[in-house]
């Protein structure tokens, strides 16, 4: 009996070590990735690196057009995916009846979330680039990534709305609110933390996404910026930038990684470091938002 208990205790202790080990393995891999990239890339990081265009000479090349491109593309992505995703989430949680149409939409969204990102690129190539003749432009890239992250935003919106207990809704209806008043004045504000968390995570995914943009033909050598959206003369605003060619951070990095010269690998590491910092910061923001709102609304 005593022996048996000893054995069980030992078993638990061993598994505790194994579990800790596998967790540490994952975390150490993450850490070594960050450290390796930082050690290789850090010396290249300078103001000039951020303000120079791509170049044939590794020491002169920079990521100016890439980060500007990432920013503009993500803006288009956000403008498509956030309203569409949040609206879909609201519809499915608050409005949709229980019928085959709702079921179809739900299954469809689950499937969309599971489709490899590169197939979005293939669709975008066929539809945006060739069918709508949008070419290899910022708007093509923004729309492609927008569709790609749409399921993430829909799913997190729904999860956020679902945490609101039904008695809060009932309180609102009992006061004579219409459905939209309930959604607009209560459901949306109370779920905004969860929605925002999802949006930030989705946008960070969009910033790091490479494959679908490669298939829509993101050019890799862009030594100029898109047309500025504001001008000195009338009509003051211009949307020409939407149709301009672009490059983005991950594509610039991919371009440098796939060159044989080692100097370019250093550039790749530096670009990777910037990209990694951007996405990790966004994710940290998301975790912070989630934490803040969880404390604000305790149901």
């Amino acid at each position, binding site marked *: 009996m005593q022996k048996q208990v000893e054995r069980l205790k030992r078993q638990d202790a061993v598994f505790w070590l194994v579990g800790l080990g596998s967790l540490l393995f994952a975390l150490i891999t993450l850490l070594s990735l960050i450290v390796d990239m930082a050690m290789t890339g850090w010396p290249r990081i300078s103001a000039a690196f951020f303000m120079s265009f791509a170049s044939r000479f590794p020491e002169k090349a920079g990521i100016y057009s890439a980060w500007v491109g990432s920013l503009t593309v993500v803006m288009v992505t956000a403008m498509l995916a956030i309203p569409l995703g949040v609206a879909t989430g609201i519809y499915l949680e608050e409005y949709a*009846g*229980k019928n085959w149409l709702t079921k179809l939409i739900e299954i469809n969204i689950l499937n969309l979330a599971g489709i490899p990102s590169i197939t979005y690129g293939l669709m975008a190539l066929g539809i945006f680039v060739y069918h709508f003749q949008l070419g290899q432009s910022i708007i093509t890239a923004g729309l492609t990534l927008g569709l790609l992250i749409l399921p993430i935003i829909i799913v997190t919106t729904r999860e956020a709305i679902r945490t609101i*207990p039904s*008695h*809060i*809704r*009932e*309180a*609102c*209806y*009992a*006061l*004579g*609110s*219409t459905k939209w*008043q309930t959604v607009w*004045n*209560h459901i949306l504000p*109370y779920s905004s933390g969860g929605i925002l968390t999802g949006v930030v995570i989705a946008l960070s995914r969009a910033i790091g996404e490479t494959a679908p943009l490669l298939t829509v033909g993101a050019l890799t050598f862009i030594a100029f910026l898109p047309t500025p959206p504001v001008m000195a003369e009338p009509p003051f605003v211009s949307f020409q930038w939407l149709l301009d060619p672009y490059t983005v951070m991950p594509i610039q990095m991919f371009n440098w990684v796939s060159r044989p010269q080692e100097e370019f690998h250093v550039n790749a590491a530096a670009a990777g470091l910037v990209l990694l910092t951007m996405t990790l910061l966004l994710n940290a923001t998301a975790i912070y938002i989630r934490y803040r709102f969880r404390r*604000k*609304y*305790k149901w």
Partner: protein
Amino acid sequence: MVEKLKKAEVLNLSFGYSPAVKVIRSINLPIYQNKVAALIGPSGCGKSTLLRCFNRMHDLYGQVKYEGEIKLYPESVNILSTTVDPIEVRMKVGMVFQKPNPFPKSIFENIAYGLRVRGIKKRSYIDDKVEDSLKKAGLWGEVSARLHTSAAALSGGQQQRLCIARALATEPDLLLLDEPTSALDPISTAHIEELLAELKKSVTILMVTHNLHQAARTADYTAFMYLGDLIEFGESDQIFTNPKEQRTENYITGRFG
């Protein structure tokens, strides 16, 4: 009881989510103005279901069909009619729920919300109304200094009185209380029971309760329901001292339920 003015009347009402299964059957019940009426009965007897017909809460959960009528006076309109907008019904019939459910907003906003839904924007009117309803709900003294802090910080009993104030702000014709004290401690419960006596001067109250003593203490009229039927209705004194039906007597003497 010289004059018994009816505020509402249930006429032959049956209701169930599916046509085959009726949760309540052929209920007839008068609701007298400026009185407290209590619905009592064992769990699952349909008392909450009946209460939620009065503000058409069931309409929130899909297509439902009410058989029979609930007439609201003095308009003498059947509020269950398909031509009546449930939102307008809820504008006239306030409700307080089992669990205190203040919105996670400030105390002030909780009460002002019902007024804003009714399109009232005049700040001075809203200010007055918030103060007035908090006073009626006996909460003004405790919260007047922190109207703009979160309602979530209040105690359970305070939250429930806030919910009552929220319902009162819209000047309902009829106030529905669904086991309003079942989630509260005895002191908060006593507080709310005292409040009811005061409130009935300005509003008619229909209350579901699990607590027979509470019904006996606070209600002018009591209705006993069992398995979806209304067994007996009368003045509380009579129901609790001299019930006419055997089942009522069994229930109030604790033989089942």
